[in-house]
């Protein structure tokens, strides 16, 4: 039908509870049903537009005060939830607190908690931190039609967190409590903390202020949105939207070709098949998501099949093999960027030089270790006092199953290194994504390939993650540079843009100097629409599972 | 006496993987009206194949290669060649004019169909017209067959004239309509009960609802006989009807056959390898060896003055009641019919074989009136006798 939009994709929704969802697919569903206080303005990552707040707080308009420690949001009036209840400032404060109170294991609330309480979880070693709920409770106030957030320290990314992440999703307090959500008291908060998977009360129900209501959610089958009649904003053109699960590419492609779907998800490797299709609009959108190949400098030698004998005797590698920068450099020289861009990505990708990809603040172009096998060989000859070259080595490079681009990178590096010296033997193996996650965290992989998508568009979210010894990836690379760690800690809470910039620039320089890994690509997502669909606005943080339904028009 | 059935030069081969099994080679035989004919021979000599060929019920891969089976149901009628009939005409002969009792009562009954059904089938194949007529008459004279009586009457009226009418065939394919023959089936079952009762089985009403495996061997054999007798055949072929039974049961069955013959059937072709049975029950006998008939004649003649060396040997090799001294045995064993011996098929084992025997196949000759033999030596034996 004319006012129905059909989207076929393969992402699965885990939960509709904003406090617990932490994946793009759930995000898409939630953010079309619920709304947050502010949201990205168009394609920008650093500019915001007010949604349920009437204006975006800033230092200029007095919304940000106390050197960035107090934020005030004025709440929009006349907004109704789908069930007819009015939105109040009380709802907003409740929602922000409730998410933090819930803080499911592995959920997204670490960002808000970091900002509001300076910790990343309400629990430590499985036990609730004393007084944490009081802290949460005190940090958010209602004052008339405004909600005020108090931070212990300035937290520059707060607006981004509130815009994109789940922390800012606004619920109806009454409805939430009626459906078994947090009752609003500090005393009982512990009861609602850390629910088991599937036990979150809002897992499969939804009641937001957003433009669409949920009509049906048949998991991994279809999700149906229906336009909400009492939406406060402009009435969207599409009446209904069906997001249908379809994992088989052939079938998705045919659906798009036959017009049974208005949009399908196109993985990068199938791009050429869609390009020549008639009646198709194709958008390629670079994402704030970078993937890198990281060297582990202290591999776990215990029962590790990936490092052969565990010694530098030609049958394996020692656990600190990559601690020698020459080895790392050799590997970097073996990565053929040109070919990678052409072959794997069809010239449709950019390769950032550092984890702080283009599109992020303070992004800086660094030099790269260009593809040069001779130089690679030279480095190898120097490595480990020449022992590497003499003895050779055997190791395994892994990538997660099903990602063609990462696989290609692994193969490319492996094959190029092997071509240096017949004594170098590298096997490329694929591992299920979940196992992969576990294994690299056990320091099992000499070289692991993994990506990071922005939680909020800030260098902190990338450079700290990739480089700091406390960062998610930095930690498992076994890479430790005191300077980096200091810079990372410092820059996170610095609000002076100049000083921040310098710190981040320095960190990016160090990425080149220390060569702890190589950034393989900045993800590009492809959005293939039937040509009668208009209104798509590309955004670097909203990936191929995303769809902003209220913008779409079908004619 | 008039000839009832006459087989001439009947030849049957089985085309197996090892080659053609020449199970019957120019086999000839004639049976008179009202006579009990015993066909003897050892296992595998082709007794069953003979009768199956006559009835044209050879299993694959068997093929009847040639010959004639002349059958004259009425003593004065022109004989018909059964092998020349169409399959449909043959169907009406089988079970009606000629019927057959099989060797293995266990195998001869369908294990998943009730006894009653199996016996009643004979009537349903051959007596539909008659039964329909009977039921029509009954309906006309006021008997009711329930709600559907008018429908039955109409359909059975057709069936009484021509049980194979296209209308009936069509109706049999259609749900509900296909029940037109219910009264006929009921009637057939009644008749089945009657005939089973006649064979000395107690409680036939109950027996007809049973399945073959519920019955003992003797009872099964009686059921098989009941099936064969259902339509009062002119010729009853009993293919080793008793060989798989115990002595005491065998006695029962033989007695039964004897009684039945006296009552109704005109002729019996009794196949067995037990010479004792033949001696006791038959008037005429044929001795088979490896697919050929080697001697035939009156039982008394053949058994007292066997002319064929095989018959002679056979008679001396079975233990007798008053056996004295050693049994004479026939050396060697039955030939493989894929490569049967040339000439007389018995010559490799024959103590009197001569050169001619291995090259020429002896003809069946009537040397003494009513006593035929196929042996090159027979003349001399006769000479010796006289």
């Amino acid at each position, binding site marked *: 039908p004319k006012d129905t939009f059909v989207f076929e994709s393969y992402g699965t929704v885990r939960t509709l509870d904003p406090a617990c969802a932490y994946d793009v697919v759930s995000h898409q569903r939630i953010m079309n049903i619920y709304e947050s206080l502010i949201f990205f303005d168009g394609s920008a990552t650093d500019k915001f537009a007010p949604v349920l707040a009437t204006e975006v707080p800033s230092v200029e308009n007095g919304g940000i005060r106390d050197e960035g420690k107090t934020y005030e949001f004025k709440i929009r009036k006349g907004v109704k939830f789908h069930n007819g209840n009015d939105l109040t400032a009380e709802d907003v404060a409740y929602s922000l607190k409730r998410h933090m109170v819930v803080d499911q294991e592995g959920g997204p609330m670490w960002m808000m908690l970091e900002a509001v309480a300076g910790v990343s979880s309400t629990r430590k070693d499985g036990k609730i931190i004393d007084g944490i709920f009081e802290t949460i409770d005190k940090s958010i106030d209602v004052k008339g039609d405004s909600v005020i957030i108090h931070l212990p320290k300035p937290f520059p990314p707060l607006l981004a967190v509130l815009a994109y992440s789940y922390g800012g999703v606004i619920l109806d307090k009454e409805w939430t409590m009626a459906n078994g959500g947090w009752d609003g008291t500090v005393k009982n908060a512990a009861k609602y903390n850390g629910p088991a998977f599937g036990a979150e009360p809002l897992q499969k129900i939804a009641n937001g202020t957003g433009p669409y209501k949920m009509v049906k959610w048949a998991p991994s089958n279809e999700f149906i949105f229906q336009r909400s009649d009492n939406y406060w904003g402009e009435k969207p053109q599409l009446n209904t939207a069906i997001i249908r699960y379809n994992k088989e590419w052939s079938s998705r492609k045919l659906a798009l070709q036959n017009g049974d779907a208005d949009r399908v998800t196109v993985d990068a490797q199938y791009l050429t098949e869609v390009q020549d299709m008639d009646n198709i609009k194709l958008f390629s959108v670079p994402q704030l998501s970078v993937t890198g190949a990281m060297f582990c400098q202290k591999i776990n030698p215990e029962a590790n099949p990936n490092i052969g004998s565990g010694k530098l005797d030609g049958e394996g590698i020692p656990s600190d093999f990559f601690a020698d920068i020459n080895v790392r450099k050799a590997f970097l020289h073996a990565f053929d960027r040109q070919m990678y861009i052409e072959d794997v990505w069809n010239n449709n990708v950019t390769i950032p030089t550092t984890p702080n990809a283009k599109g992020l603040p303070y992004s800086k172009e660094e030099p790269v270790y260009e593809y040069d096998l001779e130089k690679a060989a030279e480095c190898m000859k120097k490595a480990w006092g020449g022992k590497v070259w003499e003895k050779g080595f055997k190791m395994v490079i892994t990538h997660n199953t099903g990602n063609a681009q990462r696989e290609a990178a692994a193969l490319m590096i492996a094959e190029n290194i092997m071509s240096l010296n017949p004594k170098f033997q590298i096997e490329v193996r694929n591992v299920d994504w979940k196992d992969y996650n576990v294994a690299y965290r056990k320091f099992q992989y000499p070289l692991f390939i993994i990506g990071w998508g922005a939680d909020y568009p800030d260098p902190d979210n990338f450079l700290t993650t990739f480089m700091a010894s406390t960062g998610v990836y930095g930690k498992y690379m076994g890479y430790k540079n005191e300077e980096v760690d200091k810079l990372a800690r410092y820059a996170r809470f610095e609000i002076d843009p100049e000083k921040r910039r310098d710190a981040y620039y320095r960190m990016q320089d160090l990425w080149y100097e220390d060569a702890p890994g190589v950034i393989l690509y900045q993800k590009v997502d492809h959005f293939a629409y039937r040509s009668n669909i208009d209104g798509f606005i590309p955004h670097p943080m909203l990936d191929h599972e995303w769809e902003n339904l209220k913008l779409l028009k079908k004619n | 006496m008039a000839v009832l059935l006459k087989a001439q030069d009947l030849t049957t081969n089985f085309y197996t993987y090892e080659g053609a099994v020449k199970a019957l080679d120019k086999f000839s035989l004639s049976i008179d009206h009202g006579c009990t004919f015993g066909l003897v021979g050892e296992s595998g000599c082709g007794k069953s194949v003979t009768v199956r060929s006559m009835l044209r019920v050879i299993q694959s891969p068997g093929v009847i290669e040639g010959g004639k089976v002349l059958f004259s149901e009425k003593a004065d009628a022109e004989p018909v060649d059964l092998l020349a009939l169409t399959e449909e005409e043959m169907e009406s002969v089988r079970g009606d004019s000629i019927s057959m009792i099989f060797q293995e009562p266990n195998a001869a009954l369908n294990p998943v169909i009730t006894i009653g059904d199996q016996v009643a089938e004979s009537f349903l194949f051959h007596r539909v017209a008659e039964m329909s007529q009977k039921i029509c008459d009954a309906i006309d004279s006021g008997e009711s067959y329930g709600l559907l009586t008018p429908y039955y009457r109409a359909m059975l009226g057709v069936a009484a004239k021509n049980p194979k009418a296209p209308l009936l065939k069509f109706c049999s394919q259609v749900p509900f309509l296909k029940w037109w023959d219910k009264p006929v089936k009921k009637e057939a079952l009644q008749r089945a009960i009657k005939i089973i009762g006649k064979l000395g089985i107690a409680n036939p009403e109950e027996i007809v609802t049973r399945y073959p495996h519920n019955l003992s061997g003797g009872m099964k054999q009686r059921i098989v006989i009941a099936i064969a007798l259902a339509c009062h055949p002119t010729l009853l072929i009993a293919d080793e009807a008793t060989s798989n039974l115990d002595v005491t049961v065998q*006695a029962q069955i033989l007695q039964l056959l004897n009684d039945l013959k006296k009552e109704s059937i005109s002729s019996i072709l009794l196949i067995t390898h037990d010479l004792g049975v033949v*001696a006791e029950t038959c008037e005429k006998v044929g001795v088979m060896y490896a697919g050929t008939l080697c001697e035939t004649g009156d039982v008394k003649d053949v*058994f007292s003055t066997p002319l064929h060396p095989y018959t002679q040997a056979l008679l001396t090799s079975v233990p007798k009641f008053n056996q004295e001294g050693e049994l004479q*045995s026939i050396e060697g*064993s039955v030939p493989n019919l894929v490569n049967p011996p040339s000439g007389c098929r018995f010559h490799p084992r024959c103590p009197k074989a001569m050169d001619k025997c291995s090259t020429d196949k002896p003809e069946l000759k009537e040397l003494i009136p009513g006593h035929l033999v196929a042996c090159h030596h027979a003349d001399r034996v006769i000479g010796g006798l006289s």
Partner: protein
Amino acid sequence: MKKKIIELKGLEKHYPVFGGVLKRQVNSVKALDGIDLDIYRGECLGVVGESGCGKTTTGKAIINLHAPTGGEAIYYPEDGDPMDLAKMSNRQMKNAGIRSRLQMVFQDPTTSLNPRMLIKHIIAEPIKEQEKLSARELEKKIVSILEMVGLSRMHLMRYPHEFSGGQRQRIAVARAIAASPEFIVLDEPTSALDVSVQAQILNLLDKLRKELNLTYLFVTHHLLVVKYISTRIAVMYLGKCIETCPTDELFSNPLHPYTHALLSGIPNPEVAAEPNRIVLEGDVPSPLNPPSGCRFHTRCPFCIDVCSREEPVLLDVGNDHKVACHRQDVVKELVKEKFGIEGYF
């Protein structure tokens, strides 16, 4: 005096029947229900009876192929002490060196020979179990045994299916002999064979018994065959031995009504007048629940009260003739009276 080789005392073989929710034993087939029998050295004891009466079971139970469930089967070796086979396991018998002395020849030579073994190996198997011989000696011995049963060296390298039925039965006999047995159970060894070949085997068996001083238990339901080959006969009915006596005695002076029925049922190849038959009514009762009293009483034409109440015992009536019938003294007259049969010749 004849020497006993085997003595059965109340030998029993019950096959369990399972049923119920837990598949427990609910009943048993009384295939052999307490049988007393003496077997003497060098004789051929014929066992006759209807199908299912337990003939084969007797044979198998004696040689412990199916372990008996009760009673005794005492074996008297030529030298040494008697032993109760019923209480011995196969292994014990082997250790006592008597396993191979008790052999069996089966009804169907096709299934009793391993189709994938050469004749040579089939016959070599029992020999190898007894003595270690060089290959040449072994072959010599095999050939001599083959010749004993009327086969020759040229048959050595063939498979069983390359033989005719009679030859196969010879091979089966040869294999049994190769184990140098004292006692052989012959379970209907000729009933799967052609009439014309049957005589060969019967003669062979008779010859071997005399030559090798063997003892046979000859199981069959063909009365004329037993008459020809046996020296003594035991008649069985439903797991019981009802009459035993020397062969001639049985045919001239049968005492049990069932024996009469059996004898009268034999078709006589000698062309004779219309025979008189004792045609029994009904079928053999099930060995699951055999009738009380005399087991034959349900079919016996001369049954009286006591028959259904009391089980007759096997009585010696002289002449080495034993019979188990309450009315054994009057049966002859009764038969004559009712069926007009005087004798069976």
